[in-house]
């Protein structure tokens, strides 16, 4: 009697999957929420160092300015002229987005200022310049 009660259970399901499923779905929801809103610049640049740099975890639109003046956004190079329209569109989609400009150490301040202006004209007022914390100066 004991034997017959035991066998159907063990060949049907070895373990109860329900708690694992709960856990997995929670993880899934976490990753869906945290990942999908970040727009990467798509290239690596040498960021300047600054001791007083603050963590900008809300900054999720990254615009890179390269040494040669190229502007990269969302994994492709863009012109300074089209930046405003791009930002306007993204700002309508998600008004809470903020911009971080990742400028190369050797890039020109004029290009960075131009990018800041275009972003502000596109409707996003909160713009920061990226810097590596730590050894500054």
């Amino acid at each position, binding site marked *: 009697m004991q034997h*017959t009660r035991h066998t*159907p*259970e063990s060949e*049907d*399901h070895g373990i109860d*999957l*329900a708690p*694992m*499923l709960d856990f*997995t*779905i929670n*993880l*899934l929801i976490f*990753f*869906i929420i*945290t*990942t999908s809103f*970040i727009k*990467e610049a798509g290239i690596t640049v040498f960021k*300047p*160092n*600054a*001791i*007083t*740099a*603050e*963590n*900008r*975890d809300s*900054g*999720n639109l*990254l615009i890179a*300015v390269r040494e040669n003046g190229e502007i990269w956004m969302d994994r492709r190079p863009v012109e300074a002229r089209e930046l405003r329209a791009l930002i306007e569109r993204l700002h309508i989609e998600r008004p809470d987005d903020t911009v*971080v400009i*990742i*400028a*190369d*150490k*050797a*890039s*020109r*301040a*004029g290009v*960075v*200022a131009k990018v*800041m*202006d275009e972003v*502000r004209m596109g409707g996003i007022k*909160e*713009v*920061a*310049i*990226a*810097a*590596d*914390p730590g050894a*500054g*100066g």
Partner: protein
Amino acid sequence: MGMRRRNEQAHESSHGIDLAPMLDFVINLLIFFIITAVFLKEFGLNVNRPTSFEQNKNDDKKGIQIQVLNNGEIWIDGRAVDVRAVRANVERMSAIDPDTGVLLLANEQAPTGTVVEVVDQVHLGGIYNITFTTSN
């Protein structure tokens, strides 16, 4: 016959639906999102950017003006200073007038690295109200 019916009942009460295919699907989704996940920790500095209206206002109010030339030289009050001297200068001036702001006037050709260093030093000097403008 009677035993088989009892087994089916036990099966139905323990699991309404079979969760295994759903779990497979969910785990696939999870792996996809983990792989595409980007964990960004971006550190940044905030600077103000003047509109034309604010620029006029700043001209009236005498703040500290720091110039960065196209070759990376830093000028405060008509003399060239080292980047390490910016902090001392800012500290002195903010001691005289604690509400003062800094006007950072960079040449368009000035390297961004120097501009950010100056912003950092001004922050260390105790002033967070920095307005960043460029000139050509």
